[in-house]
């Protein structure tokens, strides 16, 4: 349904009523106070909210949502604002609901290996708090120092250890959620499953469209006895890609398996001096963890496989210090690439790994066509590509060209059987590409799901799932394989 803009009186009334729920300083409505909330990690999109609400109790969240439900005011929930798809982009006529004050770890159960945390707890803070018990929280998005668990759940965040340890959806057990109507419900349970539908799975990755998360029970893993890393250089990215398949075919699931291409290697090396071979076309970083004896055997096998797979150089980290150095370059890859160019645009497509050569080749062609360089950082184990397109936003039209180029990369991912987003979410950024990923039937089903939870369409409107009309307009511009997508719809 359409969100109707508020009159000035209605705006004032909304702010007044929020001030009855929250202390005055927890309701921000002056422009200078709103500016820090105008965007998330995708700063190309900016918008001031009408008002920012900063509750610190579940009751306050309930009261705010009840009020917004009554007044039919949109609500955009926000954690740390590190998201890369504009999922937390504010709505001009809406409340930006910040969960930043929910910062407490409420309980740690080292025996059952769970922690109960508020949504504003930082991802890394969980692992730090449970380190004393020899435990950690596995999903590790690269923003883990800043990003919060509420946002991680909303986006189903991944990280470099997904292939072995899963995404956020695999690592949460219970979720308390406030509905748009202001009711609180508990999804999941204290055991490993719950009766009824798997609402926990539905909520994970729902991008703030179905409810507001106010508490989560996360699963913790025991720290592995040992972790070893190996770095291999290749003179050809195709060989590097094939080597990944060789390792997995051998029955070995690495804890992390990352690939970087020449431009990314160069950027990272110049930035943090990780000792990466600058003449390589690609490097693979492979980490194995688990029991001492098993890791010792597997590292030898991986070394042999890499050598047989044509690696020009294979280095096994001597110790933890060298292992961390190997990773330092990878972890700094984004900011490192950022030094090469005034701006960069990070994509997030996934592909079946076997199509890597074709996708890289087409991407290189597109890069030449658009005259925009691309550095590739790749979660090779799970097929998640992060092409970083280098551009300069100060050059008129260059952002638009970059977005168009990015859109083509995502379209390519869909064509080879992959996805437009592996871990960053759709948000506002990839909303048009959703029209390529899905047909009318699926999109209609998504809208029906949305309606089941939020009949008035007030939670994060305009994000994650495009309207059919939007797809019709987008489809008119992008004819795929000579077929118009969504042909049943009239064109505007």
């Amino acid at each position, binding site marked *: 349904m359409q969100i109707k803009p508020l009159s000035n009186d209605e705006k004032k009334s909304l702010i007044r009523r929020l001030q009855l729920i929250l202390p005055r300083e927890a309701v921000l409505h002056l422009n200078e106070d709103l500016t820090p909330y105008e965007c998330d990690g995708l700063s190309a999109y900016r918008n001031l909210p009408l008002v920012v609400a900063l509750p610190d109790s579940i009751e306050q969240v309930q009261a705010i949502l009840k009020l917004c439900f009554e007044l039919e005011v949109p609500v955009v929930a926000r954690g740390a604002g590190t998201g890369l798809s504009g999922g937390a982009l504010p709505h001009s006529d809406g409340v930006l609901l910040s969960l930043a004050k929910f910062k407490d770890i409420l309980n740690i159960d080292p025996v059952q290996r769970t922690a109960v945390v508020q949504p504003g707890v930082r991802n890394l803070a969980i692992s730090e708090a449970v380190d004393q018990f020899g435990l950690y929280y596995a999903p590790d998005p690269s923003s883990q120092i800043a990003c919060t668990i509420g946002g991680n759940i909303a986006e189903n965040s991944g990280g470099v250890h997904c292939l072995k340890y899963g995404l956020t959806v695999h690592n949460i057990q219970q979720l308390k959620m406030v509905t748009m109507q202001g009711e609180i419900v508990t*999804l999941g349970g204290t055991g490993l499953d719950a009766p009824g539908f798997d*609402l926990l*799975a539905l909520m994970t990755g729902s991008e703030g469209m179905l409810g507001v998360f106010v508490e989560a029970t996360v699963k913790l893993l025991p*720290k592995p006895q040992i972790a070893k890393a190996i770095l291999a250089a290749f003179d050809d990215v195709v060989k590097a890609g094939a080597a990944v398949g060789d390792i997995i*075919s051998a029955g070995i699931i690495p804890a992390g398996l990352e690939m970087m291409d020449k431009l990314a290697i160069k950027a990272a090396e110049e930035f943090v001096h990780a000792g990466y071979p600058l003449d390589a076309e690609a490097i693979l970083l492979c980490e194995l963890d688990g029991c001492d004896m098993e890791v010792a*055997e597997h590292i030898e096998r991986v070394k042999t496989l890499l050598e047989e797979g044509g690696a020009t150089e294979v280095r096994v980290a001597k110790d933890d210090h060298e292992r961390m150095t190997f990773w330092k370059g990878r972890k700094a890859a984004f900011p490192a690439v950022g030094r090469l160019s005034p701006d960069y645009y990070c994509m997030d497509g996934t592909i079946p790994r076997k199509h890597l050569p074709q996708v890289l080749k087409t991407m290189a062609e597109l890069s030449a066509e658009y005259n925009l360089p691309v550095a590739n950082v790749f979660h090779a184990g799970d097929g*998640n590509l992060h092409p970083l397109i280098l551009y300069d936003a100060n050059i008129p039209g260059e952002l638009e060209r970059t977005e168009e180029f990015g859109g083509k990369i995502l379209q390519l991912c869909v064509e080879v059987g992959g996805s437009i987003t592996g871990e960053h979410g759709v948000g506002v950024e990839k909303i048009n590409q959703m029209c390529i990923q899905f047909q009318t039937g699926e999109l209609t089903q998504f809208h*029906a799901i949305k309606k089941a939870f939020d009949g008035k369409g007030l939670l994060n409107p305009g994000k994650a799932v495009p309207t059919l009309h939007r797809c019709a307009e987008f489809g008119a511009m992008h004819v795929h394989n000579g077929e118009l997508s969504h042909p049943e719809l009239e064109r505007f």
Partner: protein
Amino acid sequence: MGDITQKLQQQIAQAFSSNSPLRICGGGSKDFYGRKIQGDNINVAEHCGIISYEPTELVITARAGTLLSDIENSLSEKGQMLGFEPPHFSDTATLGGTIACNLSGPRRPYRGAARDYVLGSTILNGKAEKLHFGGEVMKNVAGYDVSRLMCGSLGTIGLLLDVSLKVIPKPEAESTVILECDVQTAIDKMHQWVQQSLPISACSYANGTLYARLASNEASIKLAHQYMGGELINDTKYWQQLKEQQLDFFHTEMPIWRLSLASNAAPLNLQGEIIYDWGGALRWLRSDESADKIRHAVEALGGHATLFRNNVNQLDPFHELSPGIHAMHRQLKLAFDPANILNPGRMYADI
């Protein structure tokens, strides 16, 4: 044999227009599970066959009627397996039923449940629309996770046509440590061993014996055994019988309850016998106690109880949902199946 999508689609379309309920049937191996329902049978068993299997991508896609045993055999040939170790309960078990019931075996706490391995699915909703969600890649956050929502939904919101699953390599070796001890010692050890990063792939306790399965290479298993004590055996029979409910414990006419709760939850003060699986998080209870008493005791510990087998009095098998959650189920059911024709009442009276 093969692709009968059209036939299934037509049958649902007809049922939709005539408002007549359908009863989705696969191999019938889990007919006992859930509420008894009326309706015209819609048979998915013929909709079978492995569509694609790529060992190096760790992904298999198969039609819902494919025999679970065919899938497991194909994986085994390539040294791979389903990580959630699903029970079959009969040779006729199909992939569709396995996913629709979301039942997982002893490996579950250490490697994940059926729902954790689902990457994508194609379904027919209650309007006979063929819809595809997720895909064949490990990471995919485009759109709501409908594929996982299908797991355990008992066919009430969609008929599964095909499913893509992540698969994992088989461990190089698996052996079982067995140890005689009391229940509290068993529970403590199950937790302690995992916390020490031992390569545990299953933990159960029955009749005064603790069983801990180790999955790794021989050297690691040997080392872990030295630390754990007890006797090391290579026999897999116990796990097979536990998973398939073939132990003597299950040979009964008494109600069998499935209790899901925190692995370290206190022992329950209920009459009857208990077998512990999932490192304590799943407890099978053989008891004549009243349903109310059992549910109340489990709920007090934050868990839930399912009347799994021998439901002679046709009680509601699944634990009651809170009103708020139940309302969500109703809304979701309507969102997928507005005419209420897909397995209506299989899960709850109105779901």
